[in-house]
């Protein structure tokens, strides 16, 4: 789960890593006010869950309250990768004497955290990896980052100044240890400072920060579970989906898909797209029983974009007849407008088929056949 830059910085600051002086703004007026209290020049940074903001012009500099207000007006409400910008982080603009990169992420092959230290921070940091400007430090999970290892990272980052500037090395070492502690304590998948800047007279400051939390550990981080770029209603809906064991993603097509298992559902999307069909969603429901399938149908009810719903049932651990009853329950109660195509195979297939045929639905046994049929009826060819 991604969090905003300002949330990351709150965590950094609480942990003792220096960040620029700043405030949040949700309106142009507020931006001007915050900027004035900080003193000019300031940086206005749109808060988005997807980054790549610099290239999109979502980071702007203001020299006066009027300019801050105008820039805020142009940023707020803009769209960035499907997100509407609602919050700006207004920060003092710092004079940077140097930009470093410091990140922690997981090497999934080795199964350990890796500290990445780069002598050249910035947006093209991947490209410095090959030039000897980036080093990786693997960490033993149970031991954590050892002080001497943090010292090594600090020496590398300090580069030419390693010998002459003991204070810098000490500060870097502290930041690295703190960052690692935060990464573990907050159950993060990724935590990154880019740049970690050297500011004359002020020391080492995290000018930008990004973090991804582990969605499977949110129960250990209840204070970080909150709406992000969504209404209260959307937030509640997402929570409800999670509680029901649904993994749901809206797409822009007209064929709704009700299936269980992420792998097979992705395979259905592939088959559909390869034949020119347009899926309306990705739904993976863990709850494949009579009530579960009835409940899942509610997602498609009243959605005008949906012309057809394709249900995929491959009953290995569950039973076709139970699932057929769930489909029947829904159809008889709601009489939906969409076409319905059911792929059904597995345990109690004959019994399931009989139940569906009683209500005028003929299930299809082969997955590819069902996908084809769903596309045909959507296009009005059948």
């Amino acid at each position, binding site marked *: 789960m991604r969090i905003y830059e300002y949330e990351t910085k709150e965590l950094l600051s609480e942990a003792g890593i220096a960040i620029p002086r700043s405030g949040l703004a949700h309106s142009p007026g507020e931006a001007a006010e915050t900027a004035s209290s900080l003193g000019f020049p300031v940086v206005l940074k749109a808060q988005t869950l997807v980054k790549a903001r610099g290239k999109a012009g979502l980071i702007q500099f203001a020299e006066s309250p009027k300019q801050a207000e105008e820039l805020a007006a142009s940023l707020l409400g803009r769209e960035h990768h499907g997100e509407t910008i609602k919050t700006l982080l207004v920060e003092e603009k710092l004079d940077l004497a140097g930009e470093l990169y410091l990140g922690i992420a997981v090497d999934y092959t080795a199964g350990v955290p890796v500290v990445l230290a780069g002598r050249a921070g910035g947006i093209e940091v991947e490209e410095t990896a090959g030039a000897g400007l980036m080093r990786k430090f693997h960490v033993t999970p149970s031991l954590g980052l050892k002080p001497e290892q943090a010292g090594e990272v600090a020496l590398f980052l300090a580069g030419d100044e390693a010998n002459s500037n003991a204070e810098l090395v000490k500060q870097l070492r502290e930041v690295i240890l703190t960052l690692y502690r935060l990464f573990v304590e907050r159950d993060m998948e990724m935590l*990154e400072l880019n740049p970690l800047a050297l500011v004359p007279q002020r020391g080492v400051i995290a000018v930008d920060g990004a973090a991804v939390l582990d969605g499977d550990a949110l129960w250990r981080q209840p204070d970080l579970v909150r709406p992000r770029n969504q209404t209260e209603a959307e937030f509640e809906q997402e929570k409800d989906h999670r509680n029901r064991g649904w993994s749901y993603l809206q797409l822009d097509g007209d064929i709704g898909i009700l299936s269980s298992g992420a*792998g097979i559902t992705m395979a259905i999307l592939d088959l559909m797209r390869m034949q020119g069909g347009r899926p309306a969603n990705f739904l993976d429901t863990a709850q494949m029983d009579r009530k579960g399938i009835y409940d899942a149908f509610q997602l498609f009810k009243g959605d005008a974009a949906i012309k057809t719903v394709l249900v995929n049932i491959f009953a290995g651990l569950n039973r076709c007849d139970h699932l057929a009853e769930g489909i029947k329950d829904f159809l008889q109660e709601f009489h939906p407008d969409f076409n319905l195509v059911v792929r059904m195979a597995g345990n109690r297939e004959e019994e399931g088929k009989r139940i569906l045929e009683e209500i005028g639905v003929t299930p299809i046994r082969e997955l590819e056949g069902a996908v084809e049929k769903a596309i045909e009826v959507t296009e009005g060819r059948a």
Partner: protein
Amino acid sequence: VSILAFRDTNVLIQGITGRAARHHTENMLAFGTNIVAGTRPGAGGQIVSGVPVYDSVEDACRNHQIDASILFIPAKGVKDSAIEVLNAGIELLVIVTEHVPLHDAMILMEKKREHDAVIIGPNTPGMISPPEKTILGFVPTRYFTPGPMGVASRSGTLTYELVSRLTAAGLGQSTCIGVGGDRLVGLRFADALLRFEKDEQTRAVLLVGEIGGTMEEEAAEVVKNGQITKPVIAYLAGHTAPDGIKLGHAGAIIDGGRGAMKTKIQALIDAGVQVARQPAEAIEMAKQAVG
């Protein structure tokens, strides 16, 4: 034969008194799995489906020779339960549980390496060896039959779909392993391939992959460097999915350009793995491979 588990593998069920665990224990016993004990703190002395229950793994090990354990344990308790098993010297763990926190999983994998044990999962339906009449987990046994195909998969439901087609085409299986749907899992595709290579009965391997992660690329590596000589077929789900937009650079630096569907397919093809675009194509390739 099989890889990893055999007809004489003695199996422990952790959390055996839970509803799902009871149900799956009965199915495993019916298929032929040699379940010798279960655990559940406070339930020592009970009998579940004829299997004696102990308070701890240590208790169970005092009374039985145990070779493998299956964890039917809620996500919050997986780390401690798995460490209990590893400390008892058991060398094969199947963790079916979903949503195990990443930092817990990292600690587990470190302990696993220390003990030189094998962890299948987390987030897996487990493994089945039809010729050995052994299942560790809960794959629907009716679709499986003994034969020459080794199967390793990141997805449960997609495995059932493909294996039922293999079986219908007359291609039985030596062992099928669900390696787990999480990004951090114990046994990976490359490990499974190396084990299938050594297994006499396995004549070809089907890998069922997905978008994301680097397991497919690692598999391609062991094929390319000659460690795998048997035919390998791969079917990957998600090749029409848009690539996700990453936050930050750290993941990209570690993965070094791997992970996208295009790079996976290219790496596999370069290594001589046959890559199927559709399930039906994968079955055809498997037929050709075992002739």
